[in-house]
């Protein structure tokens, strides 16, 4: 796995999504959202939004679906 921040964060977000996909859809979506909000530092979320805003390529559908519920980091 490359140390490119986007590649790594896409991988991590997809790992979370894979776990949440085994839950009922609504619960999985909510859990994925709160997981990223609770554990991802703003810099990480910023990179995630760079991917999401660019179309979310490489992200699993559950992550893309959660995009508008994940908290956007405040401008530094």
């Amino acid at each position, binding site marked *: *796995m490359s*140390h490119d*921040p986007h590649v*790594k964060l896409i991988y*991590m977000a997809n*790992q*979370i999504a*894979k*776990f949440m*996909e*085994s*839950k*009922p859809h609504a619960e999985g979506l909510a859990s994925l959202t709160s*997981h990223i*909000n*609770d*554990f*991802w*530092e*703003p*810099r*990480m979320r910023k990179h995630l939004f760079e991917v999401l805003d660019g179309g979310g390529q490489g992200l699993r559908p559950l992550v893309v679906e959660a995009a508008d519920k994940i908290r956007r*980091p405040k401008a*530094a």
Partner: protein
Amino acid sequence: MKDFIIPDRDFGTPVAKSKTMVTLTIDGFDVTVPEGTSIMRAAAEIGIAVPKLCATDTVDAFGSCRLCLVEIEGRNGTPASCTTPVAAGIKVQTQNAKLEKLRKGVMELYISDHPLDCLTCSANGDCELQDMAGAVGLRDVRYEAVDTHFKAKDNSGKANPQWNPKDDSNPYFTYDPAKCIVCSRCVRACEEVQGTFALTISGRGFDSRVSAGMKDDNFLGSECVSCGACVAACPTATLQEKSVIELGTPVRSVITTCAYCGVGCSFKAELRGDELVRMTPYKNGKANRGHSCVKGRFAYGYASHKDRILSPMIRDSINDAWKEVSWAEAMEFAANRMKGIIDTHGRHSVGVITSSRCTNEEAYLVQKLTRAVFMNNNTDTCARVCHSPTGYGLGQTLGTSAGTQDFDSVEHTDVAIVIGANPVAGHPVFASRLKKRLRQGAKLIVIDPRRTEMVESPHIKAAHHLALTPGTNVAIVTALAHVIVTEGLFNEDFIRNRCDWDEFQDYAEFVSQPKNSPEAVQLLTGVQADEVRAAARLYARGGNGAIYYGLGVTEHSQGSTTVIGIANLAMMTGNIGRPGVGVNPLRGQNNVQGSCDMGSFPHELPGYRHVKGEAVRDIFEKIWGVQIDDEPGLRIPNMLDAAVEGTFKGLYCQGEDILQSDPDTKHVAAGLAAMDCVIVHDLFLNETANYAHVFLPGSTFLEKDGTFTNAERRINRVRKVMAPRQGYGDWEVTQMLANAMGADWTYTHPSQIMDEIALTTPSFAGVSYEKLETLGSVQWPCNEKAPEGTPLMHVDGFVRGKGKFINTEYIATDERAGPRFPLLLTTGRILSQYNVGAQTRRTANVIWHAEDLLEIHPSDAEMRGIKDGDWVKLASRSGETTLHAQITDRVLPGVVYTTFHHPDTQANVITTDYSDWATNCPEYKVTAVQVGSSNGPTEWQQEYNAQATLSRRILPAAE
């Protein structure tokens, strides 16, 4: 429990556990004791010490020395008081003319074959034989010593064949057969307390000898694990610490807590002046109950090792040599650099790593430094790389990351599952307690890719060993649940009362799917389906079922999922909330539990409360007088990523060697190298210090006050035994740094820090040093509801309310064996070494483990032309290293194994950056590798060593 204490009383035989009480009369005094108590112990309870030699209360009575004879009214003869149980109404006499005469006769015989060199004997003043000779009034020995064991030459000057020389092969203690009275206390301690069965009595009658291992073995060559139980049990100088032989008997002792593993054994540090003579396990220690292992008992020499750095040091660049400076200069330098970084790159560009080896109070201050002085939440701790999935998994299912039991609980266990842990090596004192229970008849299921010492050892054999392919824990745990659910072995009452029944229905539907059956996962896991079914039935229906697990569960891409699966198993079988059951994470380092409790994680304040909670922030904001960031901070791997990216520039790292212990060494090195200020606070110039700009010397656990919290949530006192050699306790050093950065902290004793913790953290509300003095230790939660602490969690209900079942879908790790890297590497520990070895490598423990070895199965070795002891190259996609091979069928074909105790090996050059989906806990336990022949160190090892040597230069002090 004051610092100055008299030796622990020896009641002669172990405590009886019966609830039925019996009253008898001893020497005219009434005494009431539990049924099954020996007369000897009953007498001791009222202060009457019956003379004894072969009895001691750590092992069962043996009745061999015939010194403890008593008379019982109406009974014939003079029975031994150690082997005779009390009976209601009996009248016992422990002293009269007849008994006096008998005892003198017995002692006379003992002394006739014992050297009379008391004055120069190493046990002088600490010898029970000497004490008993005095106690029975022995004044004369009528027998001439003709045939003896203690004279090297007989009376005619010829060599005495009965005499055996001293065995000083063990680095820490000697065995002197000339001093032995063959009381068997050592043999019984080895069996009953330690459970190793390394010692025996060879020969018969006059030829009887204590013997370690086989006939030609010495102590070092035998199976002896050097736990010290025999030495503690020995009444004479036969088994004696070398330190006592060298330094003399200690004169004062201080009760403190071991700084090695998460068992948290209580010890007495025994001293002369401020020189530590020995560490002996403390009988009233509630975690260890008087037992110890080779690390805590003997491996403390690192504290006075020549490698310890005692002066602060600084340098402008990591390419420079270190310059020794005053504390004031070091603090000014460090503070200016950190302030400079914050001014240029913002307050989120710096952070801290708290130590799981330091005290609670120290961890609390380090996280406070980042939250209240740096003004961010960039704090993490080594638990990130070990038990963070426990925090997540148990938090989600049960409502708290806490282990559910105390260690005493194992005495009530009927079926133990040990998964991804090797307590014999990692948590030895707990392993001894578990093995004792297994010898009493409890059953054991081991889930581990490797045939660990737990699977089979003297008088222990696991009922089932599920030797799974590394990385398939979730598949196995879910298959166990599949059997329990589909065969109707679950505990419906418990689930209906304590969990959500509808939720369980959904979960049951998930696990019942055919894809989760043992038969379906057999191809993935490599474990026979019928073996999985039998194990599931045993756990579900075998009585009290307890699960003990370690890093073999957590350090995977699906670490958190396995923890959830374990909690599911315990809940569905009702194995929660009483003695003998539970979910028991075996924590790695001495204070991993405590450092997590103290708010070391970047998303939560002390007491596991998320920083997003305004009410929680408010508590701390009021006391600290600052505004606390409401966003989670960076975890260790994220810090390193941010460093490489250029947005994270400064780190204060206390008592943690991330360069050696964290995965993917090259990435860690790149992250550290990219920072402008790395402050390492440690005992030694560790590997991380190769990339540091400031080195602050640390103090050992012997040199400061504080508390450690062990794996059973037990808060134990650490007491200052001697003054810090470099001048300050670690908590004082952090305070100096904070104040140099503009804070105004005024702690003068760690008890004040604990008071602040109690004030802010509900689960610690009732904890104070005063209470710890009175009770010895407490298990959190300790508050108004539980003023004396909480040995068992979830007794009446789960912390989160209803227990939550969560689906555990198996998702294979992306780390897979393939044509280039066809083997799977998994890693672990060895008994004599601890973690990265910084401490144990600087003790005589290296005699047992001087280097990391690669275990490889004979068939894999043969295919590669590898012979036992060959240099081999171990390569993964991350890097390569070399080490010596050890051919063994402990590992399965396709699996290789090594330890990570030595920096020369750098096993983490091999491990990858894959990590747990929920917590980023690294996947140490599965790496695809190739193994091949090699001539010596790899280029990386040579470059690394060259850089390390260069980096460790210290300029000579200015004249």
